[in-house]
């Protein structure tokens, strides 16, 4: 008699895997990496390679020696953390600082909470914010984009549009005058502005978003909610007093907003499970970002905004439920 495998249904699987999703995100990050290398040359390469290597190494060491687990570094998620950490720091940051950032990102941000899928906060942002607070000078001297290809730490630095705006407004200048001193909206969108290694080019990030939507890696809800709420909140402020507040398009195109909205806020583990929850989460991020940029001490607020909203995710998941079948009929 034959013996068969007996197991409960379903008996087929889609073939989707953690790896396919993670490497899909990595592919989506490649246009951004390309523009980063075009803008910052060798520095971008060194920073990205260092961050990825350090993240992989720390995850491996922690799994092998502390947790005594099978190592899972090639599932792609540590590579993403490394890339996102690199894209969130200046491309002239010394290697030893990057390594510390990677240790905090992987060690504290990810592994201490249980590893893949269990991190309450975006690990790359945990690393980034740790560095921003610990090394404020190195973290806020951004290379300008017209350097020679082979420059790294010896690079010429300059202010980003966001910091120019913040300082000018504090000095009583008009937003419209400041807009003349910084790259045009078109240039900002194409990535021709200073900033962290991977946050300059909206267009590259939107290509990545289109790829992730097409491959169904993420849904549109969180990115659209973040960008929409930033536009709306900044727009309202600008409409109330155009002499005091920068126009909404400036907020959309400057700083790390695109990178945050598309790649950081959508981190699976640290974002809400339901689409409705994702929209609330995204609006929270947008509003807090603008509030920090306009009223806070820092020129940029997207990192803090995402981390703050990450903390609300368990609450959002508990109370915001997906639409159940038959719910509408019940209310009638």
């Amino acid at each position, binding site marked *: 008699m*034959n013996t*068969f495998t007996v197991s409960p*249904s379903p*008996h087929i*699987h889609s073939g989707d*895997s*953690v790896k396919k*999703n993670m490497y899909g995100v990595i592919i989506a990050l490649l246009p951004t990496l390309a523009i980063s290398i075009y803008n910052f040359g060798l520095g971008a390469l060194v920073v990205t390679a260092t961050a990825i290597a350090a993240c992989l190494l720390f995850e491996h060491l922690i799994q092998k020696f502390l947790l005594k687990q099978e190592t899972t570094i090639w599932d792609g998620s540590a590579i993403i953390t490394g890339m996102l950490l690199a894209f969130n720091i200046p491309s002239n940051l010394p290697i030893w600082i990057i390594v510390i950032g990677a240790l905090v990102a992987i060690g504290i941000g990810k592994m201490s909470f249980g590893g893949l899928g269990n991190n309450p906060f975006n690990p790359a942002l945990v690393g980034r914010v740790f560095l921003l607070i610990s090394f404020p000078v190195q973290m806020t001297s951004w290379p300008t984009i017209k350097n020679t290809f082979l420059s790294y730490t010896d690079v010429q630095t300059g202010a980003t549009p966001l910091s120019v705006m913040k300082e000018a407004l504090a000095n009583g200048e008009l937003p419209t005058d400041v807009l003349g001193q910084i790259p045009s909206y078109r240039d900002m969108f194409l990535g021709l502005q200073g900033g962290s290694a991977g946050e300059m080019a909206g267009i590259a990030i939107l290509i990545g978003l289109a790829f992730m939507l097409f491959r169904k890696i993420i849904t549109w809800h969180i990115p659209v909610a973040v960008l929409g709420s930033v536009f709306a909140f900044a727009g309202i402020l600008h409409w109330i007093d155009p002499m005091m507040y920068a126009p909404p398009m400036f907020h959309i195109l400057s700083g790390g907003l695109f990178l945050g909205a598309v790649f950081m806020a959508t981190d*699976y583990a640290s974002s809400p499970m339901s689409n409705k929850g994702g929209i609330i989460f995204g609006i929270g991020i947008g509003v807090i970002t603008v509030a920090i940029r306009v009223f806070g001490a820092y020129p940029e607020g997207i990192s803090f905004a995402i981390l703050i909203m990450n903390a609300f995710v368990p609450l959002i998941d508990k109370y915001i439920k997906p639409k*159940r079948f038959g719910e509408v009929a019940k209310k009638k």
Partner: protein
Amino acid sequence: MLKTFSLGGIHPPENKFSAGQKIESMPIPSQVTIPVGQHIGAPAAAVVKKGDTVKVGTLLAKAAGFVSANIHSPVSGTVFKIDKVADASGLKKESIIINVEGDEWEESIDRSSDLVTEINMAPQDIVKRIADCGIVGLGGATFPAHVKLSVPTGKTCDVLILNAVECEPYLTSDHQLMMEKGEEIMVGTSILMAALKVDRAVIGIENNKKDAIDHLTNLASKYPGIQIEALKVQYPQGGEKQLIDACIKRQIPSGKLPIEVGAVVQNVGTTFAVYEAVQKNKPLFERIVTVTGKSVSKPSNFLARVGTPISQLIDQAGGLPADTEKVIGGGPMMGKAIVSTDAPITKGSSGILIVKGEEAKREKMQPCIKCSKCISVCPMGLEPYLLMTVSQKAIWDRAEEEQIMDCIECGSCSYTCPSTRPLLDYIRLGKGKVGQIMRSRTK
């Protein structure tokens, strides 16, 4: 835009290898095993004993209660014994074993193939005949058909919905039946409409069966009130709740039955059985079974007597391939793995699916990455990842609060999960527990 249900759903590879294969009658086996419980509800009580002579269509076991169904003999011969025999799942069930002699039918059955269109029975007589003939839902759920047709007092039914979507991959028995017995299905539909006293029926067919849609649409012009609805191919559209939502945009509230929104659903194969019962006085003792799989040399649609060993159907389809790892009764999404092919086919056997080698194996489970894909495919709007977690941790009150009992066990979550987590396994476990707790509470 074609209609479909509102929430979730997946589209697995269709793999309908046996599509278009003419229905082929299986040879009558030399011995048949007839379990007395082939339906949802109480098993029927045997009315024959060892040594009795039976004909094709003789009553073997009588329905034990309202939610139960009569069982008739699919063969003529002598009752060899009544014993506990392992069914396809390996569970020992009371069965009547008959040694076959010839093929002699009860005289009351009209064996001609003439189409009888005229319906001259009163609604209650139709329902009684359907109960007498032991008709159960042939889509796989095997719910006694007469129960659904007996609308409880205080409820009204205004539309009959026929399930012809065959949303399970691989299966083609309903499709082929529609192509070959379209007229009979139309008459069967009219009979069901008469029994329910409704003047509207919607036959939902997925758009991967365009020939069946065209064929039935042509026929429907002769039958008033019957509408053919082409639906987008989307699993699990054959779920009652999803089908009603897709066809007439009404959503059944949590924990309620289709009648709550004025609908009764019957499978298209059941409708054909109803035609034969009412117009030909033929009890349900044979059905169409698809035998298929990637490694099967001759994927087929067989007309087989209930009680025929599964192994004989497989032999007829070219034999069991040597690399077979798993045999499934039904489709790959909701079918049950078969322990032994010695077991007989029953009223609910819509298909036999052969799976080879690695495809039968599950991948190792990885941690949940909270990608929320299980939520986006759940046709009931539930959160499978959460239901699995609370079931693992045995937090039954939370499981109930999160509407675990609404799960229709379609398997879309487990199918989709990138971490290959056995979501439905744990949800089933939780449903069992929560169901137990809920029943103990009402007592």
